[in-house]
């Protein structure tokens, strides 16, 4: 199974390099050599795009997985906890207050807002007396809705509604060399998550149990929150909002191999990357030569899979 994911990733990755309006084919590459148009396009657009897609897919899956361990609930991800909406509000704030700020700074502010969002969510969820499995994401979605309404209101008042819609919509269409490198930060976070994987497994067993095992519960939770917020912000800055990904991928992995975080991290990363890559290729080809936003495709497929997870026989949600 793991081999299958790997093979698919390599095949689709190569395909992704050669899909596009201009002719970039192996033949054209051989003909033009290293300074032909094809080679330039490959280096400036196709390779960055494919790398960004892979990193975003992998890191969003990981963000979902970590969040699920922190909250101990299978149905949360940055998009169902208000984290994404908080980060979007942060982006709006930077656009309004410091329009000339570098992308790095914007990302930092967005990550800080995302961190606040994670914290608010964890507080609110603690106030939910009965930890009902489905109530937690519900509260998160509502929280996101409220923050989203605030963002939309200010954007509307400041005539930024259209541009807000434009950059918060998930798409890789504008990725080019020099404009996507921030997404590597999300990749670094994946490695951090991998190193701390066992701790997150233990966190998933509950605070008392984790403390009993000699773990500094608060510190691990803090690391997890930072990882989630930074990944969310990095993805938001480069690609926009991509719904349901962090939820669907870890759930499918947990159906296949269970809940050990150290074992599932490579799976989640691989499957997440594969999922986004496949969706991105569909988004690029279905209305060729135009593109459809990736978030639309992911929304359809992801929502379908989520519904299946919720309503299938033997689902824990019942």
């Amino acid at each position, binding site marked *: 199974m793991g081999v299958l994911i790997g093979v698919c990733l390599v095949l689709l990755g190569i395909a992704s390099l050669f899909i596009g309006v201009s002719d970039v084919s192996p033949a054209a590459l051989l003909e033009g050599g290293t300074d032909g148009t094809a080679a330039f396009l490959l280096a400036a657009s196709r390779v960055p795009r494919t790398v960004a897609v892979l990193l975003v897919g992998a890191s969003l899956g990981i963000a979902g997985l970590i969040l699920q361990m922190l909250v101990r609930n299978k149905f949360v991800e940055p998009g169902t906890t208000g984290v994404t909406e908080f980060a979007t509000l942060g982006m709006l704030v930077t656009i309004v207050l410091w329009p000339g700020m570098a992308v790095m700074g914007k990302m930092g502010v967005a990550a800080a807002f995302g961190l606040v969002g994670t914290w608010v969510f964890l507080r609110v969820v603690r106030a939910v007396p009965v930890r009902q499995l489905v109530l937690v994401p519900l509260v998160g979605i509502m929280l996101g809705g409220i923050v989203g*309404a*605030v963002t939309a209101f200010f954007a509307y008042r400041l005539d930024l509604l259209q541009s807000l819609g434009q950059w918060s919509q998930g798409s890789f269409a504008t990725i080019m060399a020099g404009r996507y490198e921030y997404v590597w930060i999300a990749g670094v976070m994946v490695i951090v998550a991998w190193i701390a994987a066992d701790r997150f497994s233990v966190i998933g067993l509950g605070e008392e149990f984790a403390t009993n095992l000699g773990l500094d519960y608060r510190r691990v939770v803090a690391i997890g929150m930072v990882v989630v917020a930074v990944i969310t912000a990095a993805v938001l800055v480069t690609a926009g909002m991509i719904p349901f990904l962090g939820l669907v991928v870890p759930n499918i992995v947990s159906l296949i191999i269970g809940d050990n975080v150290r074992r599932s991290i490579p799976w989640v990363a691989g499957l997440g990357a594969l999922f986004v890559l496949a969706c991105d290729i569909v988004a690029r080809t279905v*209305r060729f030569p135009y593109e459809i936003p990736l978030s639309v495709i992911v929304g*359809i497929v992801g929502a*379908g899979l989520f519904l299946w997870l919720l309503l299938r026989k033997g689902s824990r949600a019942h």
Partner: protein
Amino acid sequence: MRTDTVAPTASAPEPAVASPRSRLASAWARPGVRLGLLVTLVLALAAVYLFTAVPGSLEYALKIRSTTVVAMVVVAIAVGVSTVVFHTITQNRILTPSIMGFDAFYMLVSTVIVFFLGATTFLRADPVTLWLVQVAIMVAFSVFLFTWLFGGKRRSIHLMLLVGIVLGTFFRSLTEWMQRMLDPLDFQVLTDTGFASLTRPDETLLLLTGVLVVLGCIAVLPLLRTLDVLTLGEPVAVGLGVNHRRVIMALFAIVSVMVAASTALVGPILFFGLIVANLAYSYAGTFRHRWTLPTAALLGVVFLLGGQLLLERLFGFGGSLSMVIEFAGGLFFLYLVLRKGAR
């Protein structure tokens, strides 16, 4: 779910010497009096909206503003009635048609029609028939979908809520995808005919939706007592001789018609029905539908008119009413869900 204890609908026998205060209190306990107060409030608000702050010719202002008021009334009736009926059918007070994705579904249906027929057919066809076809498709599918979801074994309310929200995203994504696949011309036609705004409603559309909503209300009238019985739960209702399955199907159909009407007029407002219906239950003080249904509709008018007045005249931004409703509704919803979770 929560069934109200029977509130005092008939007034208690009055004491021999009634002080003015207790007489007031006993009058307040009567749903009819409460409803009357609400009607007065609506009339007063409408008068203020229509006749004050007229910048130019009164006649012109009246013409435009009265269309807005009529549109608000139609929307409020549609949302109020559909939400209360939906609550009764599904035996809860948190799910509403729009939270379950009904209006996203309506948008999907109208997009699909343009998608497969193309704008030329759309423009050449008689708009009335076309709109009716649209509503008919919507009713057929939603009755199918929601009897499947709510019929059969009972699922937890929270699960259904989550399913509804995800369904909404699913429908919206599908709609957006289809809109992206449309010709720019077709897309233009879709946005032109499909959706109008509350402050500038299309008159034909307003007339159509108005007629549909009135028809829906007439269809609900003979079912008022059946609705009261349905609040007791399915087993009791069946025991009392209600043909449960058929009644539920009919009510779902009415709900979908109402939702189609309101969505066509103003587009989706997610939490409006939730606020209106829940306030109506506590305001009416009874579970009987002959009182709760009109109360919900009237409260809806109060919110829309009052909100528009406040935003337009006091704060000077008229267009953002739905965002404010969304914000307040989200907070209210969170409160409701968390409070229910505590029980």
